[in-house]
């Protein structure tokens, strides 16, 4: 009898063995409080050493929106898309959530080496926790966006709302949910790639920058690509663009949500977490090795 058989005959299991996929997910669900607590603590700690502390949650997006509004408002001049401020803020805030999830997801394993090395828990909780942390930041941005939408939709000349709050607004939380699902998958994939090839970390700033320019954050893709319908059709598969544009359709006066955008967003929200969790789980045994 060799050692493996001897161990098995006494009911011993291989240490650190990757559990089957569904029991892995079950374990993740049981430890969900850990992911949530880690993200709220990290979020607090991120601002703890600043003087303004928690106020940065709302200050940062305000400054961000102000800067973009000023710069792109001036550069684009008369080429500004319709209802520019509401258009821009929706784009900037949702994009910063998604790119934030990508960036912090990518560093979630590498950056929490202390936790990975000292405690055993399903590692996928780390990219998930980084998405939750971005979601906490998103709340402040959404509040700011709401204020902008209300102000820009108010017609000061005759004191009425141009675009009353309608059923579309009620559907916006659904889009946020789909976006969080998509970002979870994205964060898991980025986390594994970056932990096995740190090279990704070097490329992240460029990837985010390119994504920013091709996702119609501050300009209308439809207008720019009006002469090239094939290119537009390809760009419409960009998930960043899909979530931003669908949200505009629901929230911003003068834009309509199309069925195609809904389908694309639902597709991204279903496919990405499945691919992401399978891809991440495959390498569960090797995270935290100091090669």
């Amino acid at each position: 009898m060799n050692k493996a058989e001897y161990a098995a005959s006494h009911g011993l299991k291989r240490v650190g063995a990757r559990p089957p996929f569904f029991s892995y997910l079950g374990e993740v669900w049981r430890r969900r409080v850990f992911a949530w607590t880690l993200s709220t603590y990290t979020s607090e700690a991120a601002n703890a050493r600043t003087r303004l502390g928690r106020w940065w949650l709302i200050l940062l997006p305000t400054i961000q929106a102000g800067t973009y509004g000023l710069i792109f408002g001036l550069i684009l001049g008369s080429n500004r898309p319709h209802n520019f401020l509401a258009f821009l803020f929706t784009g900037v805030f949702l994009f910063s959530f998604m790119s934030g999830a990508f960036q912090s997801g990518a560093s979630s394993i590498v950056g929490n080496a202390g936790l990975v090395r000292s405690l055993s828990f399903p590692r996928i909780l780390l990219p998930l926790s980084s998405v939750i942390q971005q979601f906490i930041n998103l709340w402040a941005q959404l509040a700011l966006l709401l204020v902008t939408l209300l102000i820009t939709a108010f017609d000061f000349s005759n004191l009425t709302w141009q675009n009353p709050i309608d059923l579309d607004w009620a559907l916006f939380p659904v889009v946020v949910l789909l976006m969080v699902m998509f970002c979870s998958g994205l964060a898991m994939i980025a986390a594994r790639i970056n932990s096995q090839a740190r090279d990704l970390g070097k490329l992240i700033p460029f990837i985010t920058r390119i994504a920013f320019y091709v996702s119609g954050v501050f300009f209308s893709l439809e207008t720019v690509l009006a002469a090239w319908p094939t290119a537009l059709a390809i760009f419409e598969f960009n998930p960043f663009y899909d979530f931003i544009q669908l949200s505009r359709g629901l929230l911003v006066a003068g834009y309509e949500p199309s069925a195609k955008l809904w389908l694309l967003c639902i597709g991204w929200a279903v496919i990405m977490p499945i691919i992401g969790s399978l891809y991440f789980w495959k390498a569960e045994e090797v995270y935290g090795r100091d090669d």
Partner: protein
Amino acid sequence: MTTNDQAVAAETRQPVVVVDGVDIIYKVYASGKRANKWNAGGSKQTLREVHAVKNVSFTVYQGETIGIIGTNGSGKSSLLRSVAGLTQPTNGAVYASARPVLLGVGAVLMPSLSGEKNIMLGGLAMGYSKKETAELAPAITEFAGLEEFIDLPMRTYSSGMSARLRFAIAASRNHDILIIDEALSVGDQQFRKRSEARMREMRDTAGTVFLVSHSIKSILDTCSRVIWLEKGVLKMDGDPLEVCKAYNRYTGVTSTED
């Protein structure tokens, strides 16, 4: 112990941890001057293999407290990290009756968070509920002797203080298998006594404890069996007094050679 004795013992005693031919090889980039076709252009990076643990096998039975000794860099921590499932061995495997919990000096949880919050995170990661951890927190704080400082961020703690807190978190519950990696050597005399008492208590409640230490005294005080690793090879395994004597002779010899 002869192989025959071992066979007899194996039949009657319940194994808790089986380490089966574990090899750990690290591939690291070292800056060296040797050039090859990849870095001939002036880059100084070369890939080196470090064979940290070489074909180590042993079986640990219920109720044993295992001391692990060896000079610095002999592969003790690497071996125990693979016993805890934190590093996959390059070859071989480790089998255990329960998930071993490792407690090491290098293990920093979240330095920017307070001791309190680290207790909460540690507890949750070990699988306890928020309520359970909150109930345990005062006892953990008291055991670590950190009542005054528990609301300060861990980055402000001395190495001894954070080692005490980590030990207290891990020792707050009885683990089936607990691995302590030099955690006690940083604590003061008072804490060392308290933690050694706690370790004996855990051993008595049918838990298995691994202890890595450079203090032969604390190994002799707490362990029922000692394993000596040298340059990644298992050099000796058996009665604490015998192994420690041989180890002392060995380190004595090498230091006179130096």
